[in-house]
């Protein structure tokens, strides 16, 4: 679910870059004060671990499709939010540069969607209170399934918002949400189970590793569970209400989306598989006629299409401004949240 440059407008891309850079600067400043030298190689090697783990696939029972590890949550559990955020950011940077997954302009969006949510929202507010300090496998399982699922839902929803605010795609909101959210719910649950399995295995085989991690990171320890759960329950009701409202205003889009979802179970997962290569070939054949078309369309465009343009351009720029405002508010809220959460334990200067 990596966002792509081609779907972005500069306003949305720049805003999310600004937000990501601010969080990144905050994380590095925090780390400079908090960590010992030991953590620096640890972060680097764990980032490489995420890649290596992604190269191992498993079969999802009953579907025949394959899944792999996502990474944000497991890094947060092992490293704490600040180090995990920087590690996730580095993983996404390498993905953008080497695998061309996403793009450099969309990297801001991707780090935001896949880094900020798991490390700074879900881990301190959901995972830590639910998993607790104990090593009980049941709690770890519930916490990581919920945590990964919520983080992925937030990320997928942000992809939808970023795409729509950029105004490059015509997909209506309701249909797009219905395409993205259920797939990522399924992926999130599977990933959560796998994350719990890995953490459980490490806890059983080498308990001292997790204990040393837990001892060093007080973040989120002071957040009361009941408050967190009410907040998330409210969020769930609100978003559920919003989704169903949009869905009911788009009945035909809904049917169409469901059809698409059932046909697309493997598509978003098999990005690197043989299927992707085949699809790539398919697209290549569909791609070439477009090139011919583009050359042909080039000249008549300005004269004929001119009347349609001003309205559309005004729409996209208005969307850009709205998106910028929304993300700025989000950044402000998260910044405030982190500051107040950071003050409470009293251990950080």
């Amino acid at each position, binding site marked *: 679910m990596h966002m792509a440059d081609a779907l972005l407008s500069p306003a949305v891309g720049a805003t999310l870059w600004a937000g990501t850079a601010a969080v990144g600067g905050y994380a590095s400043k925090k780390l400079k004060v908090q960590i010992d030298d030991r953590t620096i190689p640890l972060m680097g090697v764990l980032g*490489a671990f995420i890649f*290596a783990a992604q*190269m191992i696939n498993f079969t999802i029972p009953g579907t025949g499709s394959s899944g792999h590890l996502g990474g944000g949550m497991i890094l947060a559990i092992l490293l704490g939010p600040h180090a995990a955020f920087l*590690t996730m950011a580095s993983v996404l*940077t390498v993905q953008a540069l080497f695998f061309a997954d996403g793009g450099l302009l969309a990297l801001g969006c991707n780090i935001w969607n896949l880094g900020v949510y798991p490390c700074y929202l879900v881990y301190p507010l959901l995972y830590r209170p639910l998993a607790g300090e104990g090593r009980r496998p049941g709690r770890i399982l519930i916490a990581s399934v919920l945590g990964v699922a919520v983080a992925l839902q937030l990320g997928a929803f942000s992809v939808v918002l970023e795409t729509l605010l950029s105004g490059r*795609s015509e997909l209506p909101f309701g249909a797009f949400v219905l395409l993205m959210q259920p797939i990522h719910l399924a992926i999130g649950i599977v990933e959560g189970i796998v994350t719990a399995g890995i953490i459980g*295995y490490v806890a059983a085989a080498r308990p001292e590793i997790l204990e040393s991690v837990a001892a060093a990171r007080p973040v989120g320890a002071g957040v009361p569970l009941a408050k967190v759960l009410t907040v998330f329950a409210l969020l769930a009701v609100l978003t559920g209400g919003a989704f169903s409202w949009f869905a009911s205003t788009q009945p035909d889009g809904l049917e169409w989306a469901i059809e698409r979802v059932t046909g697309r179970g493997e598509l978003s997962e098999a*990005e690197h598989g043989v299927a992707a290569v085949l699809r790539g070939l398919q697209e290549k054949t569909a791609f070439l006629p477009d090139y011919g078309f583009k050359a042909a369309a080039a000249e*008549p465009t300005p004269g004929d299409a001119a009347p349609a343009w001003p309205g559309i*351009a005004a729409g996209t720029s208005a969307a850009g401004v709205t998106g910028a405002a929304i993300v700025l508010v989000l950044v402000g809220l998260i910044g405030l949240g982190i500051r107040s959460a950071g003050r409470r334990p009293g251990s950080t200067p």
Partner: protein
Amino acid sequence: MNFHAQYFDLGRLDRLSYRRTAVHALDPRAKVIATGLFLVTVVSFPKYDVAGLVPFLLFPVLAATLGEIPIGFILRKVLIVSPFAVFVGIFNPFLDTRTVAVIAGLSVSAGWLSFASILLKFALTVSAALLLVATTSFPGVCHALRRLGCPPIFVSQLLFLYRYLFVLAEEAMRIVRAWDMRAVAGRGRGATVFARLVGVLLIRTLDRAERIYQAMLCRGFAGDIPRLGTLRLRSGDLVFVAITVVFLGVCRFFPVTEGIGLLAQGIWR
């Protein structure tokens, strides 16, 4: 198959970046800045603009040819990651059906224009990013980022990640090979075994991190990775950036494609 292909592709991009060509010799900072400007300019084009984007193909094509990077290799990587952008864009032709042009008796809807624009932008931006690494090397990009104000801790993180990516990928490859030989006829392929295998990999990784740290302490590590050699901006680098800026500016603000088209029509008549 998929796994090995991915791994060796990574190595190939890395090897390409150590060639010696005029493009490789440019200062990494100049290339990072030029690529950034290129991306912003391309993405800033309005939704329905296809013609204006076409001249920008010159940039990746020049970088690939002057840098002696095989274009087929880059194109294949672009195609492999295209599904998401194509999937989101493919709805445009069906949802935005206003006719904007008639070409040779075929009416063209606005949706096809915007879809074509998305595809073109996708090809341009992704190939630009790949070419940046292929002509600069990943450590080169990292040092450029550091000199351009990126936090040192993040740059160290990127360099560490890159260094151990290959080591751990080989480790994972051994695990996958052993798993393939033991998981016969699809048995033992599920999430439980997967979690244990990744758990083993994780424990080995953590042990490795500890050994690395000890070894680094022996070599005088004090929280930062020093760089061998210094970056120097030469006049050639400045000329390169200046030409890029002029090229991008002209292509962005003047209808270059239409001008060329009109000129061609004039000559035809």
